[in-house]
């Protein structure tokens, strides 16, 4: 394009010299033609811009992050003149179009259309613009380039991906399960209650019955009290989508993956997150997992300058202290997180903090807490290798 402009400029200067030294139709005609070339090219581009049509859509109403969905777009020329160079650029920050090079330029002859069937991949959970971002036109003499920003972009609502973990590396879930079974052995006196008619006779603790002189039944609340709590920190750490979308996506992915894995191991999981109020979900079956997944997909993260509030509120939940282990998934370890972890540690509750950061996460001073483990999780990459 620059070369074409240089040639045109040289011709224009020549034509100026022509009319300066020679009169008549030849020199002035040459000047007029050379002057009108860019004007006509611009007029042509304006015509193309006014008449060009582009259609796009994707088929799935609900997009799961990192799962492709069919995406179609059509470039159409319904006019009598050709569209010499049309280039389509796509939103690429959070989504991509699979198998399509957006540096390609298309030519559309009159009354023709180009339909492209491709795949759309949304990388993060959230709501953002996908598909065609802008269309760039070039004229037939390659002098001008006009970019038209799509005024009717597609907005996709993307739910988080369900990542199935093969195993858990961050802590020993099996051991946790063992501890659960031995809980009754180590603290039998506090785990019985008086028999009621609805109780299963197999649950009667005969030793305690003999000792107390009345039927005593093992108090079977240990599975609820002593499960794992997952605190999902729904603080928005930035107002920039490029920063907060990947981290929020990863936080939810971790929560979902851990919930799915632990519930699959029959370890009761209770999740806590803040969505205008503290929401608590017990996940112990596929049905409860689905309701948890729906709820967590719709969870909204809130950006507050003093974001400690949300985690503070979550840490004030009393039943957290009845858990054997608390998993905190957060994008920032701050005073609130540390105080929460400290309080839990003091009650002999182990804490694992999953710290999600967009850039390479660094472990802060929190690592000095005795029963708190911090695991850095990058916003991108395979969770199986980290969790």
């Amino acid at each position, binding site marked *: 394009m620059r070369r074409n402009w240089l040639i045109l400029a040289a011709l224009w200067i020549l034509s100026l010299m*022509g009319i*300066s030294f020679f*009169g008549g*139709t*030849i020199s*002035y*005609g040459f000047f007029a*033609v050379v002057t009108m070339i860019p004007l006509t090219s611009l007029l042509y581009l304006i015509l193309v811009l006014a008449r060009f049509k582009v259609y796009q859509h994707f088929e799935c109403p609900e997009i799961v992050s990192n799962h492709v969905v069919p995406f179609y777009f059509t470039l159409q020329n319904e006019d009598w003149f*050709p569209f010499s160079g049309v280039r389509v650029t796509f939103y690429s920050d959070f989504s991509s179009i699979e198998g399509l090079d957006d540096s390609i*330029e298309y030519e559309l002859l009159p009354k023709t259309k180009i339909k492209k069937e491709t795949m759309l991949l949304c990388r993060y959970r959230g709501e953002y613009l996908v598909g065609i971002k802008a269309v760039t036109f070039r004229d037939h003499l390659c002098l001008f380039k006009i970019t038209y920003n799509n005024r009717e972009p597609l907005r996709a609502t993307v739910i988080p991906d369900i990542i199935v973990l093969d195993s858990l590396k961050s802590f020993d879930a099996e051991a946790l399960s063992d501890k659960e079974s031995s809980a009754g052995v180590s603290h039998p006196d506090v785990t019985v209650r008086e028999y009621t008619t609805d109780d299963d006779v197999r649950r009667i603790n005969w030793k305690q019955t003999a000792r107390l002189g009345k039927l005593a039944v093992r108090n079977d609340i240990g599975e609820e009290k002593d499960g794992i709590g997952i605190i999902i920190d729904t603080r928005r750490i930035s107002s920039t989508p490029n920063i907060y979308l990947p981290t929020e996506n990863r936080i939810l992915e971790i929560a979902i993956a851990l919930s799915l894995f632990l519930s699959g191991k029959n370890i009761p999981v209770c999740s806590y997150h803040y969505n205008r109020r503290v929401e608590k979900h017990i996940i112990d079956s596929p049905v409860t997992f689905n309701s948890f997944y729906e709820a967590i997909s719709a969870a909204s993260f809130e950006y507050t300058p003093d974001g400690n509030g949300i985690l503070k509120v979550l840490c004030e939940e009393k039943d957290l202290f009845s858990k054997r282990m608390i998993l905190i998934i957060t994008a920032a370890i701050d005073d609130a997180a540390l105080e929460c972890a400290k309080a839990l540690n003091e009650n002999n509750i182990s804490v694992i903090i999953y710290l999600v950061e967009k850039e390479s996460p660094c472990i802060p001073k929190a690592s000095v807490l005795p029963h708190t483990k911090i695991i850095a999780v990058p916003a991108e990459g395979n969770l199986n290798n980290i969790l």
Partner: protein
Amino acid sequence: MSGLMISFLYDYIYTVYVTLTALLFYCGHAGMEKVTLKAYALTLLPTVLLSLLTHLRLKERLMLIGITLAGMTGILIVYSVSSGSLSFPYNPRTLPLLFISLASFATGFITARSTIARISASAAVVLFITLTLEGIIHPLPTGIFPAMGIILTSVCDEIQIRWKKEGFTDNKAHLVFTMPFISAILITASLIHYPADPYDWKPFLRLRDGFLSVIDRIEYRIAPASDAITGFSENGTLMTGLTSSSTEALRISASTDLNSPLYLSGRICDRFDGHSWKKNDRSDIPERTFDVLESISSVKLYSDKLRDYYTDVSINVEYTNTKSHYLFAPSKLTAKDSSSEKSGITEDGGDLVFTGFNPYHLSIKESYLHPNSDHPGFYSYMQSETLPEEEQWKEALSVMKINDKNGALSYKKYPDYRAFIKKTYSEDIPISGELAKRLSSLYEGADSEYEKMKRLEASMQEMKYNLDPAPIPDEVDSPSAYLEYFLLSGNGGYCSYYATAFVLLARAEGLPARYVQGYRIPAHNKETCIVTSGMAHAWPEVYFEGKGWIAFEPTPGFYTESVWSMSSEITAPSFSPKPLPSAPPATPSSGNAEAVKRADSKSHNSALIIIPSILIIVFFILFVLINRLLLRHRLRALNAMERQIFLSKDCLNILKLLGCGLTEGETLSEYRSRISSAVMPEALAFISDYENVLYSKPGSFVTDTEKIYKCRRLLLKVLKEQNRLRYIIKILFP
């Protein structure tokens, strides 16, 4: 738009631009002011036909040829009937136009197919524009637009070919559909009326002039004036070995065409020492004005028709690159514009000199009296020896619009002026020996001093001109010695040598004479004349008492007559009777002659109808025969299965002509049963075979060509019986 149409239009876009460019070039070259509709038709129509012929199929080509021939025949008939004679409407320009058409088609055809050809065509157009601007070729000016069309089309096409794109990337289609935009540029540009003069690009020109002025001024300051080259010099030495130079010095434009050379006087010298001229006259007497007053008053005394003897001419002298303080002006200067007065010009011994500044890029308007010096009437005038009187002097003052308040130019001062001139420009130069003899022989029988000078001028014209004469020997130390050396040695010399000799000889004859250096501008028309250093010249001027200073041209090869008709010679224009147009040839008046003419005309008309008719018939016969031959050739090239299908389709076509066509969605079996009542069943036997060929496995069915030929013959027979016209069409165009 079909591919065929796009391909045709793509080719034709190139062809039409090439054709129009060539046509407008030819028309301009042939001196035509505009292109007629016929010329357009004669060049463009053949290119359309040829382009179509290259894109159509054979049958369509033949039909097109037939239609063209028929059309041309029709035009010929109409033309011949209207003109009353059988003749081709031949015009001397027809053949070149047809040639242009063919050549343009070939060029356009190649250009559309080759990048090299496109580049070559564009380069040719650039050359075409350059040559036109330089005035070497003269196409019609509108030729620029189709020529630019070639470049624009080529560029647009090349860009598309090299552009890596996806989608519908047919460059031919792209060019065809983009052509409206390119054409819009050319049509719009061609509709604009353009001025004939170059654009007055004042800022640009001022910038250029300013830049050049700085360069010139620097050069003017630092470069010494060279003496050994041709050019005006303030040095009066007669040198040798002059180098020719053509540096621009002045620019002259005159109010009228100058039919004889213009002498611009610069420096006047009065004393010669044998080698160089010196200027002793430093008086502030307005010699130039006195000279003009003397000349005018003298003519007024002799005749009341001043313009018979002197004509007033206005010129504009622009100093461009001359290194001199002298104002270059004709000797008999009557006026110069007021701006020159402000420039500080003073008179110094007859010279006009700029004081205090260099005349750089100064422009001065001057008026002067140009003598009718070669007219016999002027000779007569010069022979009269009476001096003008006060009355004529006052008239001269009035003619020159001089308000002589202080009396510096009064008639009373006139005798003093004459005495001063005689004293300053006269010299006693003794001549003896051989030279004296020659001069007495030359002057013998002369009626006046003026005639003597004219004889002297003519005799010197026969001498030898030499830019590199031998150096003047040191022993030449006086005017007499110079004359002897120069005139008797035969070495010749350039203008300074001859002017010197002439001045000295005039003085020897007792006439005041002076040596003048300046520029001699050859005769030219009103356009601006660039005065170069090569036009620097020296010439003698002789003072004739009562008449003033008269310039002579003794330098060989430089003399040009200055003469025009006097008022007494101009009579009413007479027209020689033009020969009357010759009488028209006698027409036969007898009834027999008329009858012969009518008979001739009738026979012509018959021929007009018969010949084209025969041509059309011959064409049709040829067309039918060729078509049949091609069909037979095509059938022969097919294998048995294909031939079976082809002939079956042909039979179905015949059935269609019989009104029993296959309807949509109908199977062949259904079709056969439907029409079996209308057509004899033997003729329909081919349908089952056709069905088998179409739907059976390849190779499993044995074809029977004879059977289908038999069916075809039967069907044709039925068609012949039912509709003879359709039968004939089917036979002619199978």
